[in-house]
């Protein structure tokens, strides 16, 4: 379970000046709160620049929040420390692979870093390659992979250690329809009892994804939680029948 309370984070962005560097303060995240339960898919829905990626980076202990608290399975997350990272599988915005290593080598490397033996990691790779339809390219070097193949390899790499909590930042980017459907099925399976009742946080700006997949939706707008609940609850709250209209009404009330 992942609990996020009143999270905030500012950045200093350089503006101009050659001799004297000038900066302006950007409030990337102002006040984000939500709770992602085990056995549920929680969707973080927001427009570009709403603060989804910054929030997820803070949850993944990569970024230090200016304010607020994050707890993973009851343990407080501290940026730069690894205590909570073992329980998390993160597919972040940056999903670079090592192009000179094969897909298998890329995935096994992360497995071993998570404390698995090479045999265990290889067995897990075989399983993930089957599920994510990576079998044909699993022993090929990643250099020259298509966008979808890269995405699936990065996803397999994030899940190699079978984490209890899974954080996926726009995982369907670059995937075709068939691959997207396969990924959706796989996430549903991970949510189920057979898949281990994982806690899954899923960030996206695609309404369809959220409607079809998420049990709980958190709408993030201008760095703050604008609304949250199930898709049905959000439709009721916005008094809309179309989810896209509901999103616009809840995220940008002034525009609606």
């Amino acid at each position, binding site marked *: 379970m992942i609990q996020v309370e009143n999270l905030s984070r500012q950045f200093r962005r350089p503006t101009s000046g050659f001799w004297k560097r000038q900066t302006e303060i950007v409030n990337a995240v102002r006040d984000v709160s939500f709770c992602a339960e085990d056995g549920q898919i929680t969707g973080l829905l927001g427009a570009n620049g709403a603060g989804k990626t910054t929030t997820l980076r803070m949850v993944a202990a*990569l970024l230090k929040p200016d304010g607020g608290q994050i707890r993973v399975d009851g343990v407080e997350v501290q940026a730069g420390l690894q205590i909570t990272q073992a329980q998390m599988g993160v597919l*972040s915005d940056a999903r670079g692979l090592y192009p000179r290593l094969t897909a298998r080598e890329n995935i096994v490397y992360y497995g071993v870093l998570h404390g698995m033996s090479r045999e265990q990691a290889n067995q897990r790779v075989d399983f993930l390659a089957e599920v994510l339809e990576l079998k044909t390219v699993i022993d090929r*070097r990643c250099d020259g992979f298509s966008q979808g193949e890269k995405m699936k390899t990065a996803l397999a790499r994030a899940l190699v250690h079978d984490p209890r909590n899974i954080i996926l930042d726009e995982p369907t980017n670059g995937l075709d329809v068939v691959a997207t459907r396969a990924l959706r099925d796989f996430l549903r399976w991970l949510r189920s009892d057979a898949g281990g009742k994982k806690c899954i946080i899923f960030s996206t700006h695609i309404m369809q994804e959220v409607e079809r997949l998420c049990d709980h939706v958190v709408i993030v707008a201008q760095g703050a939680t604008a609304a949250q609940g199930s898709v049905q609850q959000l439709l009721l709250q916005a008094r809309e029948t179309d989810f896209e209209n509901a999103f616009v009404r809840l995220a940008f009330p002034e525009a609606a």
Partner: protein
Amino acid sequence: MKAAFVIAYKELLDALRDRRTMLMVFTVTLFGMPFMMVVLSESANRYETQIEKKQIWVAGMDKAPVLQNYIERQGYQIKEAPADYESQLQTKLLIDPVLVIDADFQEKLAEGDRPTVTIVMDVANQDSQSGVAPLKRLMQGFGMELASLNLAMRGVSPDILNVVNVRERHLSRTADSGAQLKGALTMMLMLTMVSAGLYAAIDTSAGERERGSLEPLMMNPVSSWSFTIGKWMAVGTLTMLVVVFSVLSIFPASFLIRNETMRIMLQFSSTELFLLILVLLPLGLAVTAVQIAIAINGKSHKEAQARCTLLVVAAPLISMVSIFKQGADPVWFKWVPLLSQNMLMGKILNNEPVGSIDMLAPVLSCTLITALALWYVSGKMRKVLM
């Protein structure tokens, strides 16, 4: 520590598959040292042949039969210089200096006056410069012979010309000769060391940031120290392998040397080569750590490369500081990395005794630099993402 080895293994595997890194490694190890030794031996060869070939170019030899007689008696073959010798020297068609004799040479000599001869060469023509010294010696010999004869004819002992008897006694050991060549050898090893692991160091730090693999890597439950040590071990191993192969390539390279004197000078024992590697080991590991520390701040290969070039340029420059010192090496030299290694390698190659303090001091300073650089990298590894 297990994680550090896992990281080192992956980084080495990655580096061995990187064409850029391997091109650098192979070029430097296989061709660097042999190429430099062959070039140096060839230039020495050319110098020696010039001295030995006993052939001089003269313009206006017919104006000085006495001088012609002297030159021929010294076993020199006289060649008539072409009319356009000046332009030929400039265009390097003529590689020896030309002795030009004034038209009134014989008359002035007969009158007891001082005739003039001119040695013509082009400063830009390296070969013509090296031929000047033998020509000067020849003319001095001619002057001495005439002066001695004149004095003898007047009943004065020619010894009067030699007021002081000058003798030379060389204290240097035989192995001391060829200092210049050995200096070049140590400089080449230094250059090899700072450039060998450069690409691997950049790829392992700034390269990770550029391709976006550093962020997912930092999400693994492994301490920043393990990442730093693992990456440093991999690049350090690569650098030291290159250094070991470069030192070992001195053996086969000596077969390519045509100059006999040079070949004798460059016959090092395996103990000497082992000591060279031992001296370079701490420096190589320190250089690697510093390279990673510099490169980690780069967001791309290009940026990191620009930063690291400073190190590649600075390394040979620091080792050149020893050129400006006068007399014995100052004590502080042995505490400065690069300078101390330069000094130690010079001593080893010249068969001079090397004290344990001489060996230990650079190890300590290099260890300190390595520790500082690695501490900096481990602190930065996660911070650059924040």
